[in-house]
């Protein structure tokens, strides 16, 4: 029994899970995805969210990614911690996505509804500043 308990603790602390919730950002009227991307980047900057990395992929497909660090949270056990990032991703197809990523010791199913308020604020800002209405559509992970 003790051995099983030890193994459980080892596995719990050794495993890292990437819990991700992805949303497609869909403008309600034709609007350049680049403009929407820049609009959200500007909004994050005004909120003081730290840009961690910005990359333009060239091969095998073109893609733009901006990664922001949101913070670290510690769970009820001192061993358990999570790192939170948000990634803005403009694909070659011209579709814009937002990934809410939690790197954690615990596997967790994403809860898209918990991000509705945040998405509402982003959409509000885009409408006020750019006049672009967007909706966030949850994308099921394969």
């Amino acid at each position, binding site marked *: *029994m003790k*051995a*099983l308990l*030890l*193994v459980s603790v*080892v*596995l719990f602390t*050794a495993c890292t899970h990437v819990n991700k919730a992805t949303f497609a950002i869909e403008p309600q009227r034709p609007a350049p995805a680049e403009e929407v991307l820049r609009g959200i980047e500007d909004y994050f900057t005004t909120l003081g969210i730290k*840009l*961690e*990395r*910005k*990359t*333009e*992929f*060239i*091969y*095998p497909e073109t893609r733009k990614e901006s990664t922001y660090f949101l913070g670290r949270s510690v769970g009820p056990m001192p061993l358990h911690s999570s790192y939170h990032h948000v990634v803005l991703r403009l694909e070659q197809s011209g579709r814009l996505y937002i990934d809410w990523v939690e790197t954690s010791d615990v596997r967790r199913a994403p809860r898209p509804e918990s991000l509705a308020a945040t998405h509402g604020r982003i959409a509000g800002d885009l409408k006020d500043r750019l006049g672009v209405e967007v909706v966030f559509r949850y994308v099921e992970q394969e």
Partner: protein
Amino acid sequence: MKVVARLLAICVLAAELAGCAYVEYRRVYELHPHVSETQRLTVGEVVERYFLDKGLLLQQKYRDVYPERRLVSALEIPRRPEEKRRHAFLFVVIADGGVLQLIHSEWYLRHTPDDFVAESKRELLTRISGEIGANADLRLAPSTVR
């Protein structure tokens, strides 16, 4: 029951430890003197083409805009399963400042990988010199910069 539980625990721990037993091999080389702005793309292409000719596979090419401005080519080094290697890559990195780095990175289980860049150094430098001018006194030196 107790024996079965212990055996099960030992098996799981052994599997876990085997997975964690891979060790990272990482060597960074830097080209000196640094590449001028006009030659940057040419040198990058020569280096990339040289390693593609040697059988490496271009998996990804990207341009980092922040926090550093640099062009990165990720070339996969083909490895056989029996070699017990993971994520074997050679990264060709050219920073906007002119620094060209070759980063050999892979995870190995038992036998330390050969220094891929050191083995190719002479031939590669000859190829670069031929492209940008025979007078260039080029050398690839180990670097601590990651």
